[in-house]
């Protein structure tokens, strides 16, 4: 039996990895992957809590979130593709129209 604290530790580790990746990387695809990592970190957390309380809500939430993540992935990749066509690369510092 794996202790719940381990599951939480894993969740925090995955989430922090994702957050760090979003903050320090410039490649939009990598950042996008990192956002998925953050989502999955949160999912693990939900599962852990659900297991700890012996209730099923957390599992249901996770299913919903996976569906949303899938939809988001499709839109996100489409945006990145369009961005690549316009700017000739996927580095986010190419998106500077909003700069003062």
């Amino acid at each position, binding site marked *: 039996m794996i202790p719940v604290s381990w599951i939480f530790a894993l969740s925090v580790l995955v989430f922090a990895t994702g957050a760090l990746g979003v*903050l320090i990387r410039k490649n939009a695809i990598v*950042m996008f992957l990192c956002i998925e990592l953050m989502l999955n970190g949160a999912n693990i957390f939900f599962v852990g809590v659900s297991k700890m309380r012996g209730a099923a809500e957390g599992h249901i939430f996770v299913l919903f979130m996976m569906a949303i993540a899938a939809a988001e992935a499709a839109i996100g990749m489409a945006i990145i593709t369009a961005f690549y066509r316009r700017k000739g690369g996927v580095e986010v510092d190419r*998106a500077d*129209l909003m*700069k*003062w």
Partner: protein
Amino acid sequence: MLKLILAVILIPLAGAMINGLFCWKTKRKAHLIAVPAIAIPAVISLVLFWKVAHGQRFDGTFYWWISVGNFRIPIGFLLDELSAVMIVTVTFVATWIHIYSIGYMDHETDRGYAKYFCYLNFFVFFMLTLVLANNYLLMFVGWEGVGLCSYLLIGYWYEKASAANAGMKAFITNRVGDFGFMIALFLLYKHLGSLIYHDVFASAHELTLPLATLITLLLFMGATGKSAQIPLYVWLPDAMEGPTPVSSLIHAATMVTAGVYMVARSHVLYNLAPFAMEVVASIGAATAMFAASMALVNNDLKRVLAYSTVSQLGYMFVGVGVGAYAAGVFHLFTHAFFKGLMFLCAGSVMHALHGELDMQKMGGLYNKMKITAITFIIGALAISGVPPLAGFWSKDSILHHAFVSGHKIIWFVGTVTAAMTAFYMFRLIFLTFFGEPRDKHIYEIAHENPPVMTIPLMVLAFFSATVGLLALLPGGGFEGFLNRLFEAAHHGAEHAAHGGHEAGGAAVLILISVLVAFMGIGLAYAMYMKHTPDPKKLTERFRPIYTLLYNRYYVDELYFALFINPTVGISRHVLWKIVDVLIIDGIVNGVARLCSLVGNLIRKIHTGFIPDYAWAILVGIIIVCGLKIIF
């Protein structure tokens, strides 16, 4: 009674609304609405007058207009002897002037024709509001309303710069007087707590003498504006830019008499302030003579009549100023007929000559325009005070009261003015209608006008000749009727009631005033028909006086130098260039510049790089969560 009063007031308003809102529909038929809209109230006014003559009065509230705490102003009406006389005069003269206008305005465009009748009805509505109101504030509404209509009608030909300017001049000059009027109303409300005549007059004795004097003088300041007295008379001669029936209705018969009406209406207050009454009488006498002297040399047909109006208004103020309110109002009543008539005659001449107003170019028109000439002569005889025509009775009554109340100087000025009046009126007649035609072309085109214009002339001429006889009715005649109102509030101080019985003295006074009238007429005949003394030679001999009179004492120039140019100068160089451009624009632009500056500083935060925003979000979350944990 209230229903009848409302009908009198609202029918002209309805007429104005129909022509105003549907002028694209009524067009040339505007008079079919406008004339009945005055004629019906005229009939109702006669009914009301008949009721008042039989001792009925009305003072009632239609509804409460303003009701804020203790400040309560009704839309209420007062019908007594004074307002009954006023509504009959206004509606009756207005009816004939409306009919006359059909002929006079037939050259107008469709739209302008309806607009003209709309304004004219609107004017009558406000004038009736003015005279029927039972409180000062509602009177002030009418007071301002007639001023507005006067402005609109003076500037009726607004494409002409002189007409537009004359309208503005009239309006602004009146504002100066209205300023005094309003302060008087504030003082009345402050010290008596009401503006309703009934309450004001009932508690008027509580006013201290200086206060009563101040209030009445301020009210009179309003009257000098509206009724064209020194020093605010300057707008009236320029107001002749409007269509002539307008000059007849507004600037001779009705609106300009509003000041006299107001003083007569406030007689309770004026009786408390002898000094103010002296001022009213003196200003009236001074204006009468001053304006008459300017009429002596003017060559513009309508302007002579305008100065004559100013002069006659002066007489009315002499009347009310010496405490003979009834005589003043009687002169107002007769003057409405004969001056209205003379303006219509002038309009008839002008219409026939395609707008020519210079008397020096006329002459001999009697042969071409017999009706106009004869009716004009009747009007001129009436204003000159030739018995038994209307002006004789009323003017003589004023002079008589001035004399017996001890105002000998004012009586003398008035008598001299009467001679001047007769002179300039007959100078006008001889130059216009008699003698040799001085301009062949103008003589050629002259023709008598259609009946729609000459019938009003004949009707008004008939009344100009006969209304004076009302003075002979039993019970003191016309003035006795009015004195039912004035003497109820005014015991003892009525010198005239006793003086009037000195038949011998009165006869001498009458003889003198008739004599001076004939002297004036005779002199005009000698100068302009016989040329002995020749007016041209006289002009040469008295060149400085002639120039002074001809240029109207340079009063307009003086006002320009003293008030208008400094005002324009201050407006341009201080208010515009400094206050507006520097201060007001500075504040507005400064606020905009400040926003722009702060924005410029703060927008540096937005780098446009996504990781920076992500960092900001992370840091924000950490701070928020940290705060949550700590507290």
